[in-house]
């Protein structure tokens, strides 16, 4: 396999495409709304209308606008159909043949939800067939790997990633190039690459969507990373809750192996790289890197103190590079288009784009990818279409590790530093919009219950502290708390934040601290006036 072979596959794939192509979303969001039945019905309709010679139905990954699913898009330059029902499919096919307008609701891809996006990570999502490697190759896939292996020294690759300014998309925003350089410098007989696909933050589904829509993109990023740091074995650690992502990854790994894009002597170079899947078993804490490593080793997912960092001593004591799905998905474009192209996007300290999952009380739910630094208001009000029949009260970012950003701060640009200043975090990219009917003490309690249940139990501040914070919050919502309880709540949150062993405990108090900061009245009201209403639908 070399570049010509790749180009040949791409050419063949493009040549086999039929004049009219209907793309059906087959990611989990649309599938759960009968997306599969829609795809089958379309195929049946094409066969019935005897149009198979010029119309094809392609299952693709996520198109983003989950709230309008199942989505069907006609290429080239055709309509975008929303909330398609299987019984509407015949009329859609008939309309292609001049049979009058389709009996399905037509959406527009010229709305801010789509037009304000800047897809890099998601550029293939909803376009290519995630179950065919040829489809990825036709979109230029694996060329970046070829360029890296054949035209760049490992140090050049690290350098390129460093210059791009890419920062880890898993939440903390550690400079990716620096992490790679650390692993690359370690002298060891073995090194590992780990892709953290244990996307546990409730309200976040970016990684799921990327894996379901464009799995090869992630594998290619991992392979480039492996080459850059000198690793030969990789693991993708995926949540067990994502069966579709797991099956598509399995397919992708098999296909890549069969084509020689994973395995030994890739692109006829001395570079070997093998990827295995590891399926998580329902433990949020395994998103923490040292816990994740223990889990890959078949143990209880309890974190350990760092240093040593995994880059120094990771899997089985060997240097290990851990990045998350979205980080790896950024690698191939950076290698292809160059670090300058990438670093021109975004803000001074936060380069590139970020994928966000919009959910909650918002008109358009789904996935968007915007340049770093895009104001929260643009995302929530313009692209998301605001709250249906209501007002934005707060936007929760970063899941149980993040905080609630009040509407007054909607003009904040979304980047690592700005969100941290507001007491929240970028996190992996979940954004839950809340309206006036949501009680913020209830929201804080919801997150604390989550952290309490997900605490591994190893360190005392997190194990006993989260349980105690939850107990105090319950007293508050039940109207049994005193102002002394609020004082205990605050000091305990500070202690758990400072004294916990890992990121779970260190960030668990954030939802409480941020709501205490922005919505002290709601806490006070519970103390003065008795029980608070649970957040209602």
């Amino acid at each position, binding site marked *: 396999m070399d570049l010509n072979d790749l180009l040949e596959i791409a050419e063949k794939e493009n040549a086999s495409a039929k004049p009219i192509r209907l793309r059906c979303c087959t990611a989990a*969001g649309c599938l*759960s709304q009968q997306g599969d039945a829609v795809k089958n019905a379309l195929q049946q309709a094409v066969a019935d209308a005897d149009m198979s010679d010029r119309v094809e139905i392609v299952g693709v990954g996520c198109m983003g606008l*989950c*709230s309008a699913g199942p989505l069907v898009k006609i290429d080239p330059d055709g309509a975008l159909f929303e909330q398609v029902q299987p019984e509407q499919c015949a009329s859609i096919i008939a309309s292609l043949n001049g049979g009058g307008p389709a009996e399905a609701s037509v959406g527009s891809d010229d709305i801010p939800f789509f037009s304000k996006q800047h897809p890099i990570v998601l550029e293939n999502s909803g376009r290519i067939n995630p179950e065919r490697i040829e489809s990825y190759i036709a979109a230029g896939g694996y060329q970046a790997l070829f360029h890296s292996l054949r035209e760049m020294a490992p140090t050049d690759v690290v350098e390129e990633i460093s210059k791009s300014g890419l920062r880890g998309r898993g939440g903390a925003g550690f400079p990716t190039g620096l992490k790679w350089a650390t692993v690359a410098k370690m002298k060891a007989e073995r090194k590992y690459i780990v892709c953290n696909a244990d996307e546990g933050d409730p*309200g976040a589904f970016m990684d799921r969507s990327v894996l379901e829509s464009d799995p090869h993109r992630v594998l290619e990023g991992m392979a480039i990373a492996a080459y850059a740091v000198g690793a030969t074995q990789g693991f993708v650690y995926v949540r067990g809750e*994502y069966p579709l992502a797991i099956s598509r990854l399995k397919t992708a790994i098999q296909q890549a192996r069969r084509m020689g894009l994973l395995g030994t002597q890739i692109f006829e170079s001395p570079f070997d790289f093998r990827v295995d899947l590891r399926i998580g078993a329902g433990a949020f804490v395994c998103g923490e890197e040292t816990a994740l490593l223990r889990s890959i080793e078949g143990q*209880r997912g309890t974190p350990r103190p760092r240093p040593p960092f995994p880059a120094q001593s990771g899997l*089985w004591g060997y240097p290990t590079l851990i990045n998350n799905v979205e980080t790896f998905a950024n690698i191939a474009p950076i290698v292809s288009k160059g670090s300058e192209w990438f670093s021109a996007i975004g803000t001074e300290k936060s380069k590139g784009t970020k994928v966000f999952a919009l959910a909650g009380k918002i008109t358009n739910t789904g996935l968007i990818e915007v340049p770093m630094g895009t104001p929260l208001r643009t995302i929530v009000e313009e692209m998301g279409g605001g709250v249906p029949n209501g007002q934005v009260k707060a936007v929760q970012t970063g899941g149980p590790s993040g905080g609630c950003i009040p509407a007054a701060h909607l003009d904040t640009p979304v980047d690592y530093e700005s969100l941290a200043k507001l007491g929240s975090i970028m996190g992996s990219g979940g954004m839950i919009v809340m309206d006036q009917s949501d009680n913020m003490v209830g929201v804080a309690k919801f997150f604390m219950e*989550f952290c309490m249940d997900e605490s591994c139990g190893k360190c005392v501040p997190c194990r006993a502290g989260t349980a105690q914070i939850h107990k105090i919050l319950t007293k508050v919502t039940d109207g049994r708390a005193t102002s002394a309880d609020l004082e205990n709540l605050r000091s305990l949150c500070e202690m758990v934040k400072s004294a916990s062993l890992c990121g779970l405990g260190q960030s668990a108090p954030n939802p409480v601290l941020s709501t205490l900061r922005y919505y002290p009245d709601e806490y006070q009201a519970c103390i003065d006036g008795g029980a608070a209403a649970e957040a209602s*639908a």
Partner: protein
Amino acid sequence: MSSTVAAPSKTAPAGGAKGQPSGDNRYKMLEATMKRHQYAADSLIEVLHTAQELFGFLEVDLLLHVAHSLRVPPSRVYGVATFYHFFSLKPKGDHTVVICMGTACYVKGASQVVAAIEALGGIKAGETTPDGRVSLMTARCIGACGIAPAVVLDGNITGKQTAGAVVDHVKGWLGNGS
């Protein structure tokens, strides 16, 4: 402060892979998985996944068999099996309803759905109805936030659910015995 000993009713000697009919194909398939992982201790979680798929849940004897085969101390196997919420040491019901309790589903009223099913089945989340028909579980965000609240009915993700609709569905399971 009870003076009773918390322990499972069943106890088997360590290393005792007893009670596995040699004709049971499931043990052969489990064996194949362990072999593929070269009986490595660090494949424990993968092996437990396979064991649960094959047997539906992880019985103590099964865990002992795995411990013995992978040469992992029994207490560690039990520790791992109970650390991860995916693994169940008790049999599940004929039908399962999993209600997503992620943030998006929470703000869209998932807790009302849970309450409704708890009331209907007379069980709490994580339990199975006494007749073994229905298991109710909650999930940590299944990543279907765009269609919240999401409920997984016998493995099928359904979106934009209401308490009434899920109750009707589960009533069907409780009622007709299919």
